[in-house]
């Protein structure tokens, strides 16, 4: 299936949860979806026999530096061998996205990493802890406005 | 020799103290040599050279340097450890393996104590090692050590049974437990050795004994108590310096002890394989140690070839393979003797 067809099918099913489709983006076309409906869209994408996106290749978090954070899902179907990119955008002051851990288990650690690095909170995640940084680290390192903390347990952090 | 010393010095405690010295004089250089040998053997099996520098020829002084290093090392006792047991454990382990040497006949003229219950004593006293290992594992206050100790205890206790049963079938043939008598029975050419008697039952007994003895001394593929990749170093994880060296020494002494039993019971002990040719008290020592070292080499060979068993597989082999076979072997030998 082409990305256009995938988008049309999603649009028909979910309507207003599908915000934008950009078929002419440089390199990868993507579909923008609503952050509070990622799980049901994910379930549909995974279970619909025509789509069957059973493989979450990557889940990335992005700071767009305009007051918004984003999560990007790269999906792949092993059977149909087609791909689609989903995107959500959330405001930086209330970064909440529905977790897709229940859909693709691989999202578990990816979402933890996104939480750790970008501070995006995934609602419905079973174990949302920091994964790479220590549990008591301050701030979210990959945000563009991140300032490293002065001291961590008495150790000077910036070198 | 015992008699000679008694004549010289009278029947006093000094005689026994003197008699106890030769094994100690043997164990320490032997352990140094065996550790060096192990490193060289493993190295050559693995396309390496092993230690090459210390002392010149093939790094012969490497282990001496190692022991000097260990002597100078700080003796760490973990804060949370049970200090008394922690300090005591290596000595008990060593005493267990050293005591076993008391009845091992090194030559026709030398045996520490020529008692009639020799083999029985040997098997019994070498089990003291378990207590030391349990103490070491428990007192270290380290979960890995504890695992190692529990595994070790379970393993040694389980494998004691097939090994004793295997020896028992030979004892039935020999009709004695005195190790020196075992040697006298097997004198002459090598076909008089026990291993070739009542073929193939003694041979089976030997195989069972050898496998079980590997497990008893925690050698690969049964080295699960100190399985490096699983339990870090098992019961001696927390030991350092001389205490570690002592545990190490005991391990190698144990290796020789089980090899010595194998050599004495099955392979004629200090007897020359060629009848009277090259035999005598001093050459006896040579033959005995050579036979022991052959077993030790085989132990090393196995260690550097085979992967390690898992603890349940180990128990399976001990209880469901070796023990039944050992029993069957005893019955077979018994029937042979009656018929």
């Amino acid at each position, binding site marked *: 299936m082409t990305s256009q067809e995938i988008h049309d099918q999603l649009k028909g099913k979910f309507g207003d949860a599908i915000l934008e489709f950009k078929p002419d983006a440089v390199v990868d076309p993507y579909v923008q979806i609503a952050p509070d409906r990622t799980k049901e869209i994910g379930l549909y994408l995974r279970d619909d026999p025509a789509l069957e996106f059973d493989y979450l290749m990557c889940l990335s978090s992005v700071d767009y530096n305009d007051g918004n954070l984003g999560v990007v899902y790269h999906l792949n179907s092993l059977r149909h061998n087609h791909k689609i990119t989903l995107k959500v955008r959330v405001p930086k002051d209330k970064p909440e996205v529905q977790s897709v851990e229940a859909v693709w288990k691989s999202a578990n650690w990816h979402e933890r990493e996104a939480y750790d690095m970008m501070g995006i909170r995934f609602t419905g995640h079973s174990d949302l802890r920091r994964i790479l940084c220590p549990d008591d680290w301050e701030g979210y390192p990959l945000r563009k406005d991140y300032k490293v903390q002065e001291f961590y347990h008495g150790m000077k952090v910036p070198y | 020799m015992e008699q000679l010393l008694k004549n010289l010095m009278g029947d006093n405690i000094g005689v026994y103290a003197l008699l106890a010295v030769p094994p100690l004089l043997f164990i320490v250089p032997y352990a140094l040599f065996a550790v060096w040998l192990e490193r060289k053997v493993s190295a050559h099996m693995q396309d390496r050279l092993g230690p090459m520098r210390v002392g010149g020829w093939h790094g012969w002084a490497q282990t001496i340097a190692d022991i000097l290093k260990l002597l100078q090392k700080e003796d760490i006792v973990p804060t949370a450890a049970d200090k008394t047991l922690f300090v005591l454990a290596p000595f008990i382990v060593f005493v267990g393996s050293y005591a076993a040497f008391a009845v091992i006949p090194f030559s026709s003229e030398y045996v520490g104590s020529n008692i009639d219950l020799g083999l029985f004593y040997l098997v019994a006293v070498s089990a003291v090692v378990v207590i030391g290992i349990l103490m070491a594992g428990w007192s270290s206050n380290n979960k890995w050590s504890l695992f190692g100790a529990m595994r070790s205890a379970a393993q040694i206790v389980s494998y004691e049974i097939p090994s004793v049963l295997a020896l028992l079938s030979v004892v039935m043939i020999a009709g004695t437990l005195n190790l020196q008598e075992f040697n006298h029975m097997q004198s002459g050419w090598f076909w008089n050795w026990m291993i070739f008697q009542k073929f193939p039952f003694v041979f089976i007994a030997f195989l069972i004994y050898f496998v079980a003895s590997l497990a008893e001394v925690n050698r690969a593929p049964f080295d699960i108590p100190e399985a490096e990749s699983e339990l870090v170093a098992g019961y001696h994880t927390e030991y350092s310096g001389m205490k570690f060296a002592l545990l190490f020494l005991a391990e190698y002494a144990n290796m020789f002890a089980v090899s010595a039993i194998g050599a004495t019971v099955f392979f004629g002990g200090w007897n020359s394989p060629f009848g009277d040719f090259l035999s005598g008290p001093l050459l006896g020592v040579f033959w005995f140690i050579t036979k022991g070292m052959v077993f030790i080499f085989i132990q090393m060979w196995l260690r550097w070839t085979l992967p390690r068993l898992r*603890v349940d597989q180990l128990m399976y082999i001990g209880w469901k393979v070796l023990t039944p076979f050992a029993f069957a072997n005893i019955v077979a030998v018994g029937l042979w003797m009656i018929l």
Partner: protein
Amino acid sequence: MLETKEKLETKPPPTSTGKTVRTEEMVLSMGPQHPSTHGVLRLELVVDGEIIVDVIPHIGYLHRCFEKHSEAMINYQMVIPYADRMDYLASMSMDFGYAVAVEKLLGIKVPERVEYIRVIMAELQRIASHLIALGTYGLDVGAFTPFLYCFRDREKILDLFEMTCGARLLYNYIWVGGVSHDLPPTFIDKAKEFCQYFKPKIKELNDLLSYNGIFIGRTGNIGILPAEVAINYACSGPMLRGSGVNRDLRRNDPYSIYPRLEFDVIVGKGEMGTVGDCWDRYIVRVREMEQSVRIIEQALAQIPSEGDVQSAVPKRIRPPIGEVYVRTESPRGEFGLYIISDGTVSPYRVKARSPAFVNLSVLPEISKGYMIADMVAIVGSVDIVLGEVDR
């Protein structure tokens, strides 16, 4: 975690004497300093005797901020040494993935000769990486000798790399738009020689380790990862193929010149137990090395003898505004790079989807109910490189 607490509170059944014995599960911290966690991985094991009740992996001890570093770089090429250090056992593959991603973003094609050099390097690297994986796996289950045999053979590959680019571990060889040096004149012959040398060594490894009874006993039917679980957890590489899923990015999402080369995709068949057990994952790696040799031999035969190895890429790469997700088959699986360009000379955001990170996340799923010794075997069969897990 919750499950564990509940289990701790449940009372065990009374023993035969009628008394209730209090038993407790023990929390065992395996790592970060442990001989067989392959680096600084820490596993919090909840064990009942030797049986594992729960596993909680803790990672991040080797986090070096690859993604943040990439954003701070002055230009795109400067990311490559950092990419090198992600999977330090397969640096070539990391460079390759990054170069392919940036080239796709730029929309350029590299010269033929470069493509061949890259594929040869990537496949040599795959063999080297698998050799370490197999050797250390032998070490994990207690076989020491295969480890050194594997290192001996890896050494030959490192020699080839050294004569090409001077480095033995972190190569910085595959650049955006080309490679840093052309092959030295004797490389082709030396590589052919290596292929001839290496083929019998695989048999040696099989004789010594793969078909050893104890080894099979330790790895067969252990850590079974069913195909659907593997897909749901987005496992990749030998981990996924070990579960019987025929999927190799060199085939299914081809890049570079792989479509021209002939090779088989190896999948686990459950020969020594169940499909997806540790032995399957192990043997997939062994057989993949054979296929890699095949690929190298073809590439060595086809490589154009002349050609520029640094195509006309400007000194300062300035890709158009856009983003790309490119995945390549690293020895450990799908190595994905998500690069966002904002039109400036340095990347706006780089997200590395490292295969070992994703493969490791399946660990709690496949290791419950086994013993501590099996845990070691399972971790080894996942083949993690912590540099890549933590980035």
